[in-house]
């Protein structure tokens, strides 16, 4: 049986000007789990992390850790490790002292401090721990920040957009490092990010927030990607084209788009918004087929394995991917015949 390790129950938070950042937000995190909280800017994901760490208190709701209410416990009396976006290392201490500082606060003996700091320096691969923060690169600073957040064995490691200030190469390396640390230490980790790819890559489960701070869906990356619960998630996760349908019959899955295109759309791809049916068409759900519908290629983008083709179909821009090595090349302004969900016909 899985234990409710961290439980956020009906959290609400308003900021100055009466802006509601979170409303009725509930989320459970299991022990040892790697959970990513994803959402667009201003969705309140960092607020969730700050409430868990105690840096801010919610206006309503509760935070429970192993069933114990910690909602009003100040941050320094909780045992949470936080890695901040801007590293937040103490500038007057060298890397080693930054890592050791939380242990000296806890009045741990000198020998134990040395042993624990050295263990983390080695585990996280920090070179030159005698250097000061301003002598370290962004990636090195973030490694020190991770070590500092882990050294006192926190109940949860909270990562607040930890890679956003790093260049792409360092970001990928550090992402793998954190996943390795998670496997080795088995820590419960909550990652806050706006980057869904990062969330999918690293986490066991993802929690997706909408613009107004409501939790739209929680699930494994596969669940969220293939079975989005709301139109917001279908539009937010992965790349897709939004089609406004003229008619849709949920019992048969048959739809009409642009008055003349007949489609059969899987039910999980169609959502109803104010009485209008909307379908989200992912690039992998479009294929080039001789018995499809004609569209005109607008431009192509090379993406490595694939080439993303943007095309005009009945006045709307759609996009799909073709294998870059397949030899099937399409040129700009060329007309190609495509099929959606393998079921398109024109009346």
């Amino acid at each position, binding site marked *: 049986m899985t234990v409710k390790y961290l439980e956020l129950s009906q959290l609400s938070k308003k900021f100055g000007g009466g802006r509601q950042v979170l409303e009725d937000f509930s989320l459970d995190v299991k022990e040892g789990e790697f959970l990513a909280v994803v959402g667009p800017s201003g969705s309140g994901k960092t607020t969730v992390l700050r409430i868990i760490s105690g840096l801010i208190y919610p206006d309503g709701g509760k935070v429970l850790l192993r069933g114990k209410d910690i909602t009003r416990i100040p941050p320094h009396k909780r045992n949470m*490790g936080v890695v*901040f976006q801007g590293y937040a290392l103490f500038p007057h201490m060298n890397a080693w002292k930054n890592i050791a500082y939380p242990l000296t606060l806890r009045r741990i003996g000198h020998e134990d401090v040395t042993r624990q700091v050295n263990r983390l320096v080695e585990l996280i691969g920090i070179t030159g721990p005698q250097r*000061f923060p*301003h002598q370290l690169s962004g990636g090195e600073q973030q490694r020190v920040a991770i070590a500092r957040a882990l050294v006192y064995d926190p109940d949860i490691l909270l990562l607040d957009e930890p890679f956003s200030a790093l260049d792409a190469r360092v970001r990928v390396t550090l992402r793998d490092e954190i996943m390795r640390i998670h496997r080795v230490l088995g820590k419960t980790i909550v990652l806050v990010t706006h980057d869904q790819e990062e969330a999918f890559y690293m986490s066991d489960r993802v929690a997706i927030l909408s613009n107004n701070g409501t939790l739209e869906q929680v699930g494994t990356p596969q669940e969220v990607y293939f079975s989005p619960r709301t139109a917001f998630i279908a539009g937010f996760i992965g790349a897709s084209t939004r089609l406004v349908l003229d008619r849709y019959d949920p019992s048969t899955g048959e739809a009409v788009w642009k008055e003349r295109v007949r489609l059969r759309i899987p039910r999980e791809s169609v959502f109803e918004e104010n009485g209008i049916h909307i379908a989200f068409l992912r690039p992998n759900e479009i294929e080039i087929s001789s018995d499809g519908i004609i569209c005109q290629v607008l431009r192509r983008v090379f993406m490595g394995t694939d080439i993303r083709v943007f095309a005009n179909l009945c006045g709307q821009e759609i996009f799909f991917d073709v294998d870059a090595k397949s030899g099937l090349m399409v040129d700009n302004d060329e007309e190609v015949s495509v099929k959606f969900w393998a079921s398109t016909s024109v009346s």
Partner: protein
Amino acid sequence: MRKAVHRIVLVLITAVLLSPMLMLLWATLHVGIHWSLASYIGLFHDGHFRRAMGRSIVVSLGAVAVSTIILSPSLYLVYSRFPKLLGFTEGLTLMPFVIPGVSLAIGYITVYSSGPFPLSETPILLPFAFSILGLPFFFRSYLNGLRTLQVRVLADAAASVGCGWWRTFLQVIVPNVFPAILGGALLVFALSMGEFVITDLTVGTVFSTFPVYMDSIFMYNPSEGASMAALSYLITIMVVMMVGLFVSSVMLRKSRPIKRSD
């Protein structure tokens, strides 16, 4: 041509700034037709002078203590927790520029001459009064120091690793704004060493500090008074130079980059 004009302007400014000091040195070192240090040596044989100087140093250090111990945490509290009050606080710190020292002194006498705290003829008030006089300088230096730090981020990081408010202030914020605090404290010290109006009105001859004693001695022994004035210049310059050297060496050590790539 332009360069020559620049030089002339520079020489004129330097002459205007240095002439009172040089004239003072001339007057005190040039007795009759001879050069002599007699008036300075004479100062140190004067017990009243030594006591007055000692009092000034103690009171000035007291003002520095009030500024650093009471004002710096208070201002940090405003800066970190109530940033909206910062503008108001800044306006408040400029009050010593607006209200003359005489008004402050009369206010002190009115409030503290009787009632539960009859302190007006004791030196206890002086460090507090001097720290208020020095507040615009201390505040400006300290605020500049805080602004170079990411205070909120550091405070959050400190709280997350286990620091309470005071520990965050003392062990994380203060070490990083130390040069700014020191710079502000130096200005308070220099200002307090030369403060005359409030001291003369509140304690006067009961607790004669260096400027008060200098004023009284100048009446009947102008040469000794002038030596004291020159000495006060010298002390201030020495303190400024010492602290300036210290601050710049700290800053230099901090900004020495040994950047590494990943």
